[in-house]
């Protein structure tokens, strides 16, 4: 069972570049989330989705966008990358209680 799969695992971006972080889950969960993790700050919710076609902002959405065209996929788009977006990004899915996390994407913006 693959669970939640994130790609890429590592990426270095230059300021102003854009990229998409991919996330796919094979557990048929309706709920999906994107979190960022910064040292000593826990995990902060960026965006979430309660089902295909439905997305909403979390606590720290500025500079990001998402889409949810299928149950399985929930990509996160970074437009005009800034150094403040240097972080580890985690995608998660949930059947409603608890969440299952991917392995993360470590992003550095230079």
């Amino acid at each position, binding site marked *: 069972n693959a669970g*939640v799969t994130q790609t890429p695992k590592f990426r270095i971006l230059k300021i102003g570049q854009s990229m998409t972080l991919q996330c796919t889950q094979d557990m048929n969960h309706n*709920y999906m*989330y994107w*979190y960022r993790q910064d040292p*000593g*700050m*826990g*995990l*902060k*919710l960026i965006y*979430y989705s*309660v089902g295909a076609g439905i997305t*909403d902002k*979390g*606590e720290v959405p500025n500079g990001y966008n998402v889409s949810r065209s299928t149950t399985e996929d929930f990509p996160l788009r970074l437009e005009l990358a800034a150094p403040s977006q240097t972080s580890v990004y*985690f995608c*998660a899915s*949930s059947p*409603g*209680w*608890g*969440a*299952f*996390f*991917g*392995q*993360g994407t470590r992003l550095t913006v230079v």
Partner: protein
Amino acid sequence: QQQVKQSPQSLIVQKGGISIINCAYENTAFDYFPWYQQFPGKGPALLIAIRPDVSEKKEGRFTISFNKSAKQFSLHIMDSQPGDSATYFCAASIHGSSNTGKLIFGQGTTLQVKP
């Protein structure tokens, strides 16, 4: 009101000892309190969880104690082992309507168990 406060930030325990991590919350609408364990370079993994209708839940060496009136909950790791060395996060969420499943995390506790 959406915050979950976790302490201590770091913890060093001898092998065989008890590790205790505490969390406090304000929002009484929270109805699910999980603990996650994270090893370096990995994603958080669900360790144990509790709902507010019970005061304690035990799974092996891991126990959650829940105090609804004080709005506090804690993780106890009995007979701590070097393999338990990791970062632990408490979290809370609300279920129902558009809030379902959104986890609010504490700041994390780095646990080191010395041999």
